[in-house]
């Protein structure tokens, strides 16, 4: 009976030759192999696929490092070879404060971030002594992008080798599941390195670009760390616009700046409008605009906390206008459709100002994001 079925399924069986018998045997053998070793075979295939990705990440990391090195040599004109210092910068890490007692953790983290930023900038300045302030900021961004790629490569390689060593299906499976998203981010960071090396504006800078449109032609002053402020009048309302100091790559500390402005005005600020790039959902268009409530600012959360604290203290409403972008758009040179949204956002802010404030009142417009390639 079984042999009858196999004869019907196998066209070679009728030929009766050795080849037909070998093929039949192979078919049964592969069936049995898949029953007993299916998961092992799947594991090997996944490892093979991850191995290719790890090699790709290694290539990307090397590309970013070489570009950093070339730019440092071109702009910074170091007397000694910057490679050892760059290698040490690419391995740098930050230890976050202990979370067991969360009271005061924001200020602890803020302090650690300040120390880290200062040290990082000093280290970059040491290997690029000839770079001016704006270019130094761009170089700092470039080295940070290389550091991010190096970290991604090291983490992915760690889990790949761990999965391989332990033959753990679940370690490998988890890694394989998140790899497409990790690779998207890595490719975007690699794209950003070119923008940072040449000082091109990136998608994340749209908030700074919009704020700069309010600041253009008005007297500017520097407040807090790397933040510039300018005042303008819109229909009798005093608009205090702020952004990170450009055109070098910079995000500054908008939280501290907003706190300072509120204190300078003795709390008499009628509203805060925050403009920032935000992650779009798949299917949405880059450059679409959305309005909301709350502090629109990313990062580790310290600046957001400061703004929320001040807003609560003086009961100031915080409005957010976001410009939708993908992760890649945020890292890569700014797209035309995102730039074109800037004037629309300016109009929306003006409308919001007229609707929500009265003549003679003061308000803050904060452009959040990396201001590389955007002056004020």
């Amino acid at each position, binding site marked *: 009976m079984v042999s009858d079925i196999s004869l019907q399924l196998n*066209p*070679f069986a009728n*030929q009766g*030759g050795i*080849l*037909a018998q070998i093929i039949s045997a192979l078919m049964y053998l592969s069936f049995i192999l898949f029953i007993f070793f299916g998961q092992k075979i799947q594991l090997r295939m996944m490892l093979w696929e991850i191995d290719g990705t790890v090699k790709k990440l290694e290539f990307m990391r090397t590309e970013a490092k070489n570009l950093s090195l070339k730019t440092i040599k071109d702009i910074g004109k170091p007397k000694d070879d910057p490679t050892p210092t760059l290698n040490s910068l690419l391995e740098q890490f930050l230890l976050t404060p202990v979370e067991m007692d969360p009271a005061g953790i924001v200020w602890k983290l803020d302090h650690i971030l300040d120390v880290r930023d200062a040290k990082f900038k000093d280290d970059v300045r040491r290997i690029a002594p000839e770079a001016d302030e704006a270019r130094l900021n761009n170089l700092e961004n470039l080295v940070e992008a290389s550091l991010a790629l190096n970290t991604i490569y090291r983490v992915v390689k760690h889990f790949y080798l761990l999965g391989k060593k332990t033959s753990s299906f679940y370690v490998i499976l988890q890694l394989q599941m998140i790899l497409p998203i990790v690779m998207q981010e890595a490719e975007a960071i690699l794209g950003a390195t070119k923008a940072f090396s*040449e*000082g*091109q*504006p990136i998608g994340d800078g749209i908030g700074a*670009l919009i704020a*700069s449109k309010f600041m*253009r032609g008005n007297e500017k002053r520097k407040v807090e760390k790397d933040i510039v402020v300018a005042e303008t009048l819109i229909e009798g309302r005093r608009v205090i616009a702020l952004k990170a100091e*450009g*055109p070098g790559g910079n995000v500054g500390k908008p939280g501290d700046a907003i706190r300072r402005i509120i204190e300078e005005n003795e709390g008499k600020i009628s509203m805060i409008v925050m403009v920032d790039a935000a992650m779009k959902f798949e299917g949405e268009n880059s450059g679409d605009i959305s309005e909301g409530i709350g502090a629109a600012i990313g990062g580790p959360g310290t600046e957001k906390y400061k703004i929320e604290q001040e807003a609560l203290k003086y009961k100031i409403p915080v409005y957010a206008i976001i410009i939708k972008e993908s992760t890649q758009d945020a890292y*890569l*040179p*700014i*797209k*035309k459709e*995102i*730039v074109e949204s800037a004037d629309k956002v300016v109009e929306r802010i003006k409308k919001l100002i007229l609707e929500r404030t009265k003549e003679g009142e003061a308000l803050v417009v904060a452009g959040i994001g990396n201001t590389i*390639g*955007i*002056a*004020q």
Partner: protein
Amino acid sequence: MERKPGETYLYLAVVFSLLVLAYSLWVLYSSISSYQEGQLENFYFGIIASFIGMGLAVSSLAATRKRILTIRSMASRTLTTILCGKCGFKMVRLFSVGDYIHKEIGKCQQCDGTMTITSIYAEEMKKKPR
């Protein structure tokens, strides 16, 4: 124009896939000849081998095509728009290192107004007109 190492790999993959496809077609032709000569074992073997080969070659070509399209769509150029604040004369050129938004870059060609960089943006490379 300088070719990137990744592109060389893609072209090699295309050439290899085409070679596999050509060989598979030859095996298919041979197997049909075997059928006409009554060698059924060779016919079946040839048919299976040629179909596997053709399938792999077509799949590889399709994957390579997808990759080439992705690379082409990623290619972009960055443009700088310069505007005269007085007469509105506008100029668009390729981005050059040192450009930044709101940078004043000199006098206008049409009037004595100041030319300022008003925007810098990336644009996808358009296909060359045929």
